């Protein structure tokens, strides 16, 4: 059963039934195997390593959206409104971590930029992506600024602006910046630990449909005001492993791209049926 979806016992029983020649049996079993894989939308049997990470957000979505009857779990924390709407129409929700080997981190005095690339080639052509969110974890600044008050809010201390751009072209010169367009932006307080959800639907739906080439995202964190330790403030938004001190928790704190799509078969994931 390690190679395919049909358990070895079932395979052996069918082969030994003697109704077919061994060759015919093998052909029938292989055809059935293909139907099973097609049913699940797979090309081959998944064989995940023990190190494979299941994002907690996906587990929360499962408990919330599952049509299996377990609707006790509340909406995942910090789920974007656009994502909630998208989940009700989608029948497939996929999550992606970025390719760390292709990231480009740059840090200036009051600005940190990070370029991400998410490999979306595993999305099948027949799946229509209706929405996508980029989720970024920001951790409370320890030993940094105190919780914002009305006075320091007004000066910008304790606040960050996070801008998410789509990269659509290489820089014109080697030291230049890539061509980008703004997708979403938010002003956040650095005294809170939470996930931020950014709507990146326009870019991802175009990448998935082949309408535009995927050059990735650029996330820019602007640190206005002068308060706090500059180094700790840079570490506040967890856009790179190098900005995350605890390596064990990085797999669950790293940026996550979530796509919401429909393959044309059946209802949405959030579709609830009446209890019989």
């Amino acid at each position, binding site marked *: *059963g*390690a190679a395919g*979806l049909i*358990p070895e016992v*079932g395979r052996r029983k069918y082969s030994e039934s003697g109704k077919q020649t061994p060759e015919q049996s093998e052909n029938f079993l292989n055809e059935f195997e293909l139907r099973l894989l097609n*049913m*699940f*939308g*797979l*090309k*081959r*049997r*998944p*064989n*995940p*390593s023990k190190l*494979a*990470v*299941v*994002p907690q957000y*996906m*587990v929360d*979505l*499962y408990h919330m*959206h*599952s*049509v*299996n009857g377990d609707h006790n779990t509340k909406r995942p924390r910090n789920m974007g409104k656009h994502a909630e709407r998208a989940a009700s129409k989608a*029948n*497939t*929700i*996929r*999550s*992606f971590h970025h390719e760390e080997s292709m990231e480009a981190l740059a840090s200036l005095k009051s600005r940190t930029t990070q370029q991400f690339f998410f490999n979306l080639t*595993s999305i099948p052509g027949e799946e229509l992506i209706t929405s996508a969110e980029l989720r970024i974890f920001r951790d409370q600044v320890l030993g940094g600024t105190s919780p914002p008050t009305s006075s320091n809010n007004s000066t910008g201390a304790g606040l960050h602006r996070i801008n998410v751009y789509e990269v659509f072209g290489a820089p014109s010169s080697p030291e230049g910046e890539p061509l980008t367009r703004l997708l979403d932006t938010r002003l956040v307080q650095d005294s809170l630990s939470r996930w931020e959800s950014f709507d990146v639907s326009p870019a991802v739906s175009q990448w998935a449909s082949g309408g535009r080439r995927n050059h990735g995202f650029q996330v820019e964190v602007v640190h206005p005001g002068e308060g706090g330790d500059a180094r700790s403030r840079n570490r506040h938004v967890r856009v790179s492993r190098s900005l995350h001190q605890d390596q064990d928790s990085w797999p669950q704190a790293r940026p996550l791209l979530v796509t919401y799509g429909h393959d044309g*078969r*059946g*209802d*949405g*994931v959030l*579709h609830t*049926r009446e209890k*019989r």
Partner: protein
Amino acid sequence: QATHRKQRRKQQKASCKRHALYVDFSDVGWNEWIVAPPGYHAFYCHGECPFPLADHLNSTNHAIVQTLVNSVNSNIPRACCVPTELSPISLLYLDEYEKVILKNYQDMVVEGCGCR
């Protein structure tokens, strides 16, 4: 009367209906890539479709006629006991590229059985 009741009970017992079937993913080795749920109640349909077909057996006009013909000519088989209503389940799993996917699969759970 007691014999009749016994016969009726036996007939009801054997007539087409939904039966419990829990599919445990670890039994087929799929628990290695399906994260949740660990298994699900799939149910199955089994039983006779006897003449005359009762209302609750969700029969089609064709099944009623086929059963009628069977009652006079046993070469024609009775109608089959099959799922007449199915519902989806959601699976959280890792695909062949180790990407985590939450997907809704149609027609995985038998909600109702009937003679067709």
